[in-house]
Each structure stands twice: as C-alpha cells, then as structure tokens.
C-alpha cells in the first residue's frame, strides 16, 4: 500500500508509515484537540519533503488565520503558497438563505480545477462537519460525504477530513457516526484532564489494509508543531561502555570501585534536604571538568539557586554555564503534563548533545498527569538517555519517615543501574547524613554505610568507624577519630 509519509515523528510509527495514498483519512476530535494543526502539518510536511502540492479547504476558520497559525510553528507557508500550497477560504456565510436541496458538486469542481492546475495530490477538508451541518439533513449529509469520498477516489487524490466529535465517543456520536465507516483510516485525537493536568492523546481507530498501533499514544503540540510519543520505539540496543566515570566525589568513586559506568543511569534517593541535588551537582561538575557537554534539569527548583547553593560547597558551575558546556533548565512540573515534560527534555537533549544529564528530582513528575503516566514517562526518559549512550543521574524524593522503606515514588529503582541512598541517621541526639549504595549493576561496590559530609571544602565521605555494630557518625565519629589519631600519635 502506498502511503503518504507525514514526517511527523511518532505519527508515522503509529500509522506504520503514514496515511493511505489516494484514500480518505478522517481526523476526529473535540474542540481544541489539534485536528487542524495535525492536518496542516501533514500538508506542509509533504509539500516540503516530497514536493507534493496540497490544497487546504477551510470551512470553519478563516483560511488566512489557519495559515498564520502554521507560521507560528515556523512553517514557511508564504513560501510554499507560491507553488505547493493553496488555501481555499470556504467559511460558510451565516447570512445565507436556504431554500430546497443543494449539494457539493460546485465545491468539488472548484477543487478539481485547482488541483489540476497545481498538480495537487493532497486535499484537506478542515471542519467538514460545518459544511455538512449546512445540509441539515442526516440523509443528505451521508450522501454528500460519500460523494466526496468517491470523488477523491476517482481523481486519485488523498483526502484528509477533520471533524468535530463528542470527545471520547466517536462511534456513538450520533450525527456523524457513519464517518469512520466511510473513511479508510480514522484517527481520534483527544484531550483529557487528569489531576487538573491536561494531556493529549492520539489513537488510530482503523486503517484499512494496513497494520497500525492500536494503543492510545500521547502527543503534544510544541514549538514546532505536533510530536507524537511513539510507542513502538524499537531502537537498536546500545553498545555497553567499559569506561567508568567519576561521580564527582572521590570517596564515592572508591566505594563504587572506580565510579559509574558510562551510559548507565544512577538513582539517588533520599528525603527532603538530604543532599541529592548536591551530589548531582558534583557529578555535573566532574563531567564538565572532563570537558563533556552536560545538561542539568531541575524540576520545581530555580537553577540559579542550585548554582548558588553548590558554590558554598566549592562546586562552581558558572564557568561551564558561561561557556555553554553546561545547560541548566528549571522546569515547573505543574505547567504541563508529564508527557509534555518528556518532549521538552527530549528537545533539550537534542539541542545540547550532552554526555551527562541530571534530572533532579525525577519524582516530581509524579505530581502531574497521574502516577501511571508519570511512571511511563520516567522510564522513557531513562531509556532515551540509555539509547543515546548518555550517563544520567536522577534523584528521587523518598516520602515518609521510614528510612527502611526503600521504594521510590515512580518505582524507577527497578530499572536503574545504580542506586545510592542518602538517609538520616539519628544517633545520640544528632542527625547525620548517611550514604549507602544499594545496588551497582555489573560492578563491585562497598556495602558500608558512610557518613556524608558537606563542607566548604566540598563533599566527602567520612571513614567508617563502628562501635557496637553501629556506624558512628557526627560527634561520636569525631571522638572516635580523635581517639584513633591520639592512639596513632602515642604509638609513634
């Protein structure tokens, strides 16, 4: 089957290669679901990439406005209009008087003439429901739609029809229930709100003569148009690296027997104020120190604050930020769905080409778009980095007071390669930070719990001192240390 490759990332995946050539596709969705943008994007993309001219017939919105909206996404519509694109403004005038029966023969002969003139192969009928509602008669609507379909087939034109439907119930939508039956390919776009966060999804309802992805797939309307979160992302397995890189904390590297493997991901968990971001900062500083490009994404925290806080621990990221080696982005989680965040991060990675990435904290994603969706996004982020050979360090907030409850909000610990836990050790009236390595795939690691010390000199881990089966920390450790030093001196 010949298909029109849409050039929209993800969309060609779910349609297994694009829309059917010389046939009719129906894009359905509620108001503001992105039907028009998708149709326009397909037309622009085929005009640019395959030099296939197209005609856009706008029934609802002013055609000039549709074109102007396209320019917002950076599509060169005026340039394309010289040869390959033509907009027909077919807004139905409200003051028209109806008397007796009429049909679409006129419109079709107009389009036919224009299509012949410019060699157009793709025709978009945007908001066909508006035109049909003019007929005001279900039987006539059905008849005219079939006329349109037959006309497209007869002239070997590819048609994309967009139509409004009651959100979520296309087949039950009484009035145009027959539309999906007529079309060779039907796609449903929806917009749903979960936990006050709106998320867009796309689903191929039917596709005659072609396999397609059945699932509902998330998509976003971003800066450059629609991006569909492809679900059948079959990627080649990345080559594993043998190289180990530093975490930025010398003693932590020792505990990990030389650091973490390049291209793997490390999870740092801990409660609020535990020092997760600080460790992430050290990791990034080390990456930049090696001259590697890096990306630091902080969720719900101002990146300048992070830079300032890190500076007090002698971790200075400013020169790397100035040189562009490091890019720091702070993202407000509540501003978008987790899916949109994924797309954003993907774009950032695409632009920055980092070798090391920090996402701090990944668990903030759980705050938007529902737990399951956020978990899927978190996993995809990790796989995205893995497939690109990027070493990623992400943090996750541990909720609750039980330090032994070693689960993460997004359950990402299962797919992480290394897992470092920062907890508070309460001992003898003191609260001290304790670091332990829970897992480190493919590598030996220390199983000791060590005190994590932040000071002006930087980050370090104290030597382990145990007493009565407990790791000593804080003042008790210092006492023991002092005693040991004295002992040594005494021995000398």
């Amino acid at each position, binding site marked *: 089957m010949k298909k029109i490759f849409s050039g929209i990332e993800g969309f060609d995946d779910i349609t297994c290669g694009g829309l059917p050539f010389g046939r009719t596709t129906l894009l359905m969705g509620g108001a503001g679901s992105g039907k028009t943008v998708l149709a326009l994007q397909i037309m622009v993309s085929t005009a640019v990439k395959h030099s296939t001219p197209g005609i856009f017939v706008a029934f609802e919105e002013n055609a000039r406005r549709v074109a102007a909206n396209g320019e917002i996404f950076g599509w060169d519509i005026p340039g394309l209009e010289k040869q390959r694109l033509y907009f*027909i*403004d*077919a807004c*139905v*005038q409200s*003051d*028209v*008087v*109806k*008397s*007796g*029966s*009429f*049909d*679409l*023969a*006129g*419109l079709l*002969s*107009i389009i*036919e*003439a*224009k299509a012949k003139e410019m060699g157009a192969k793709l025709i978009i009928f945007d908001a066909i429901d508006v*035109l049909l509602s*003019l007929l005001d008669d279900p039987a006539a609507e059905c008849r005219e739609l079939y006329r349109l379909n037959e006309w497209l087939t007869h002239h070997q034109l590819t048609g994309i029809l967009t139509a409004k439907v009651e959100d979520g119930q296309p087949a039950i939508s009484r009035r145009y229930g027959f539309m999906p039956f007529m079309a060779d390919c039907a796609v449903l776009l929806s917009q749903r709100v979960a936990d006050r966060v709106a998320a867009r999804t796309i689903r191929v309802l039917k596709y005659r003569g072609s396999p397609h992805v059945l699932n509902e797939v998330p998509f976003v309307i971003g800066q450059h148009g629609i991006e569909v979160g492809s679900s059948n992302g079959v990627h080649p397995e990345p080559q594993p690296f043998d190289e180990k890189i530093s975490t930025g904390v010398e003693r932590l590297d020792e505990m990990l027997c030389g650091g973490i493997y390049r291209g793997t991901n490390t999870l740092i968990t801990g409660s609020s104020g535990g020092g997760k971001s600080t460790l992430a900062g050290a990791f990034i500083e080390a990456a930049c120190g090696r001259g590697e490009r890096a990306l630091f994404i902080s969720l719900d925290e101002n990146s300048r604050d992070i830079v300032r806080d890190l500076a007090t621990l002698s971790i200075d990221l400013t020169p790397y930020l100035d040189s562009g080696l490091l890019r720091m982005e702070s993202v407000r989680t509540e501003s978008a769905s987790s899916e949109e965040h994924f797309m954003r991060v993907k774009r950032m990675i695409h632009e920055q080409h980092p070798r090391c990435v920090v996402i701090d904290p990944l668990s903030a994603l759980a705050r938007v778009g529902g737990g399951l969706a956020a978990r899927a996004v978190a996993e995809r982020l990790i796989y995205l980095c893995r497939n690109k050979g990027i070493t990623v360090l992400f943090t996750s907030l541990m909720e609750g007071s039980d330090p032994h409850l070693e689960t993460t909000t997004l359950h990402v610990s299962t797919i992480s390669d290394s897992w470092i836990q920062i907890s508070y050790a309460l001992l003898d009236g003191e609260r001290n930070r304790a670091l332990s390595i829970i897992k480190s795939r493919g590598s030996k690691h220390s199983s000791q719990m060590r005190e994590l010390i932040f000071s002006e000199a930087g980050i370090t881990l104290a030597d382990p001192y145990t007493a009565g089966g407990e790791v000593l920390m804080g003042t008790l450790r210092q006492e023991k240390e002092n005693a040991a030093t004295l002992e040594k001196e005494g021995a000398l």
Partner: protein
Amino acid sequence: MTEALHTTEHPNGAYVFKLYIAGGAPNSVRAYANLYAICRKHFPGSHRIEVIDIMKEPMRALEEKVLVTPTVIKLFPFPAIRIIGDLSEENAVLTALGLPQKEKP
C-alpha cells in the same frame, strides 16, 4: 460585465441575479426553472439572470466563494443576498427578496 452591474449599469431598478449551477444536475435544472418562474411572476420585464456553470467556469465560483450548487446571488437591488438550494421552498425565497409570502391555499 458583472462588476459594472453592481454600480452603474443596472437598468431602472431591475432585479439582477447570478445563478451558479453544476451542469445538468437535477437540482440545478430545478433551480433555474424556479428562479425563472419567480422572476416572471414578480418582476416581469425587469430582471436579468446570468447563469454560470461551475463545471465550465470553476474559477468564477471560487472568486465568489460559491461552495454548494445551486446558489443564487441577487446582486441588485442592494443589499446583495445569497440563496442556496433549488429554490423549491418558495416562501423562503420570497422573504429573502422582501416580497410577501404566498398565501397558503
């Protein structure tokens, strides 16, 4: 020619119509017959009907944004009005033209 009709050339308050049809489609044929009958009855001797076949002159229809056939545009007297359909509902046409409705028998 049509531009001129808008302004100076309309002869003595005559009704000027443009009828867009799609070849010999049944509703197009009916529209012509109905429009002709209304004109003969209400504006005897003072009407002009220009028939445009969209099949032959699609670009003219595009300029006028005529999407469905048949479509009648009354150009004069002002204001211009647009009626779609085969004009079988006569009262709707009469009302649009500002004429009294036909009495029900």
